[in-house]
């Protein structure tokens, strides 16, 4: 199978689905680029991270829509286009920017179906998440926890190129509003990705590694980190289940609970800040539903309750790292 980067996999999914379904449109700032520029070249950017490259030349200006810097109008437009029967895929470069268009997610997209007697708003909002590039406090946040707290939207966070493609195709075909979170540290990561069409259902996590001693749940870029740690520990005989939920809303509670019921130990590794975060959510799940099986305190490995710092040394200190994950696993096993 061909190896592709997550960037390529996402770009391919957009190409495939726009070709398959004429109701799919893409909109956002510089999704093509070059409009009004002096070179006369369009598709000059294809998204600031290149994810929408090549769409404009193929699908034209009516379906690949460059917008002004007006995120409320972008997500609002995606909402309206979705209510009117299209399947818009909007891009907000950085998930941090949901601050300026949050109403259109929180009070509009998430609530149409409920308030409007089953009305469908099948939109996708793609955005980057995560720290690791010294992009500082306003360009590095991980918003999946905050977004998963909102009933009515679905939240997808692929950890690799293969999942990204299948999940994005599902997201566009899904009849609910979906927030699709792309970790910037994963764009260049490659893995085998089939050329054709496939979807990955929401709410189905994947067991990345199997083991009986502890359950590790990790998301986004931290799946890679956790895999390394779990593999290292396996070499010395400490074997863990490693679960990548892939979608944080809906969450595959069954997969997590089944595993915890077997291992009796849970470590959650997540990049959202700790308070009311995704790690707390999974820890609470275990404390509510798998308490009888738990044989050790639940351990969570997250950043501290601080903004994301700029300096690389501080950012490394901020992010969960292999040492901390390993320590957490050892601590629950020592119990």
């Amino acid at each position, binding site marked *: 199978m061909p190896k592709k980067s997550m960037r390529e996999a996402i770009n391919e999914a957009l190409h495939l689905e726009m070709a398959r379904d004429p109701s799919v*449109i893409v*909109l956002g700032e510089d999704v093509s680029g070059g409009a009004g520029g002096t070179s006369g070249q369009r598709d000059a950017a294809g998204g600031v991270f290149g994810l929408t490259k090549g769409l404009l030349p193929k699908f034209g200006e*009516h*379906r690949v*829509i460059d*917008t*002004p810097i*007006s995120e*409320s*109008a*972008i*997500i*609002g*437009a*995606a*909402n*309206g*286009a*979705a*209510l*009117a*029967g*299209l399947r*818009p895929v909007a891009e907000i470069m950085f998930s941090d920017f949901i601050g300026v268009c949050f*109403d*259109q997610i929180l*009070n*509009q997209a998430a609530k*149409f*179906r*409920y*308030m*409007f*007697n*089953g*009305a469908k708003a099948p939109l996708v909002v793609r955005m980057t998440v995560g720290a690791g590039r010294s992009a500082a406090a306003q360009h590095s946040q991980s918003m999946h926890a905050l977004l998963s707290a909102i*009933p*009515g939207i*679905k939240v997808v966070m692929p950890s690799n190129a293969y999942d990204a493609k299948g999940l994005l195709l599902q997201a566009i075909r*899904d*009849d*609910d509003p979906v927030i699709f979170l792309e970790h910037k540290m994963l764009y260049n990561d490659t893995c085998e990705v089939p050329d054709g069409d496939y979807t990955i259902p929401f709410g189905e996590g994947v067991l990345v590694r199997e083991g009986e001693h502890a359950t590790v749940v990790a998301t986004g870029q931290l799946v890679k980190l956790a895999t390394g740690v779990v593999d290292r520990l396996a070499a010395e005989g400490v074997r863990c289940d490693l679960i990548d939920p892939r979608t944080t809303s*809906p969450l595959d509670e069954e997969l997590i609970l089944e595993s915890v019921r077997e291992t009796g130990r849970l470590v959650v590794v997540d990049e959202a800040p700790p308070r009311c975060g995704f790690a707390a959510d999974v820890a609470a799940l275990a404390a509510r539903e798998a308490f009888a099986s738990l044989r050790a305190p639940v351990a969570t490995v997250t950043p501290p309750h601080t903004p994301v710092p700029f300096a690389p040394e501080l950012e490394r200190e901020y992010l969960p790292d292999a040492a901390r994950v390993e320590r957490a696993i050892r601590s629950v096993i020592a119990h």
Partner: protein
Amino acid sequence: MTAEQDVITAPKAASAARHGDGLTREQLLSAYRQMKTIREFEERVHVENAAGAIPGFTHLYCGQEAVAVGACEHLSDADYIISTHRGHGHCIAKGCDVVGMMKEIHGRRDGLNGGKGGSMHIADIGKGMLGANGIVGAGQPIAVGAAIACKLRGEGRIAASFTGDGASNQGTVFEAMNMAVVLQLPKVFVFENNGYSEHTGASYGIGCEDIVKRIEGFGIPVWQADGFDFFSVYEAMGKALEVSRNGGGPTAIYCETIRYFGHFEGDPQNYRAKDEVQRYRAEKDCLVNFRARMEADGGLTAAELDAVDREVGALIERAVQEARNAPRPRAEDLLTNVYDNY
């Protein structure tokens, strides 16, 4: 504007409106029926609300009927509108089922939104009514998206949004205006200045002297209309649609009007001169005006209009009776229509 506005003035460029003549009898009857339906609906909701039959926050549209109807009589189910927190009038004008609306406002299971939306969230996507909206300024960007769909389909459909004087200061509305111009969308912005944003006069929140110039500054042509006169609004909307339906990009109409009731049901209206509403009701009422106009130019007879009044009265009475007797939601309804799977 710093000075308080003179409450009863003609709009700056009120088209004296003797052009309603082009309408057929059916069109005239329909326009009157719609305005009358809104009026009766709202007056009745006012009464029912005072009697404690209606839960939640309710904002009434009485007084502004000519705007909703003048704009929507041009539209079909294939066109889209999006409304505001004060949505009943727009919903009725766009063809939403009045009985279903009354049930919804009463929180009943077979209400238009299943009893889960209520007054501030009435919607009927099939009718092109994309919802009343409790968030001031949220609708305009949504209408931009509906207009994108209209443009892509290329069938001459349009999307219209209603914007109050207060809402006109919300950033989302400005963004929507600019975006509609950039994308040259078939979108009509209906600005509806009813003099107040909650407890504050329109002239306070709108900083500039002339809101029409502010809109035009975005590159959107504006037609002004007398918000008390169906024909004036109808004519302005017609001109705007001629542009927007035919690839000319976004347009706007601007109407001054007044609401007869408080901002919400229960508002003591301390910000208002005591006799203000009374004077408007006496001198500018859109239904009275319409009747006078019909009498003057013979478009419809008083008997015909009286018949509509009776018909509407019966409809609203039936709506209330049905709403009262309609089943209330059941516990299990709480967990439906959240997602595709529950």
